[in-house]
């Protein structure tokens, strides 16, 4: 997707949020939304929005849907696992901070990856430097980079790679 379409994506994102907040598409509401979203999109055309870098191909849209499904599944799993740990009298934690390698380059894709990792079973993004993402792991299955990357990053990266440039 070419760079020139980025402001349009920002405009549409803002407009849709505005319309959802208002819950109506009356002419006045729509006009205000178009003017304000347009002004923001022009003034902040260099800034990123959620869809910046999204490819908008059929493959990317399918990957987005699969990603949301996978994310929700992981979120529920994360909570059940956390509940099991917290309720266990022994408190079976084996924490470690591990380094993982990230192949994604687009900042929005990386944001989504780091956020997803924080919300999924036992992992918390701590720091990112270059291509290395440091993750705190409540029950570490291994401390080397390969194991950590496979266990933590790969599941989400599979989808995000297809979604973003």
């Amino acid at each position, binding site marked *: 997707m070419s760079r020139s379409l980025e402001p349009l994506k920002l405009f549409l994102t803002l407009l849709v949020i505005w319309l959802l907040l208002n*819950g109506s598409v009356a002419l006045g509401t729509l006009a205000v939304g178009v003017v304000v979203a347009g002004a923001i999109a022009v003034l902040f055309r260099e800034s990123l929005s959620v869809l910046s870098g999204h490819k908008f191909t059929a493959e990317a849209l399918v990957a987005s849907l699969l990603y949301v499904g996978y994310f929700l599944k992981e979120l529920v799993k994360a909570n059940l696992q956390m509940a099991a740990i917290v309720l266990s009298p022994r408190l079976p934690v084996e924490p470690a901070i591990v380094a993982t390698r990230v192949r994604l380059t687009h900042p929005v894709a990386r944001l989504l990856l780091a956020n997803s990792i924080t919300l999924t079973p036992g992992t918390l993004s701590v*720091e990112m430097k270059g291509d290395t993402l440091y993750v705190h792991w409540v029950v570490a299955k291994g401390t080397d980079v390969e194991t950590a990357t496979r266990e933590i990053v790969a599941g989400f990266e599979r989808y995000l790679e297809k979604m973003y440039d």
Partner: protein
Amino acid sequence: MAVLEFIGSLVLLAGALFLFLGGLGLYRMPDTYNRIQAGTKATTLGTLLLLLGAALMVPGWAVKLLLIMLFLMYTNPLSSQVLARAAHRAGVPLTAKTKHDALAQDAGDLT
């Protein structure tokens, strides 16, 4: 109508349960980082379920509640990550059970 309200109540209850577990996690976990872990996951899912329950009980609010859910999913993990990073930079100790700290080993490279 009554059915939706009943299901909504159950979802609200489930949300409250996860929030309680999150609170328990804050109390039981051994160090800052593990507490953040317990807190983030439970409050995110717990609050999402509360909002979902409210949406089921008052369908007219559903769209706005959905927007709140989206904002929450973007911002909640972000603040946890910033807290964890700040804690590590400030030298907050990890629990003695910690097996490995790749970030401290590489800290020399980080400026």
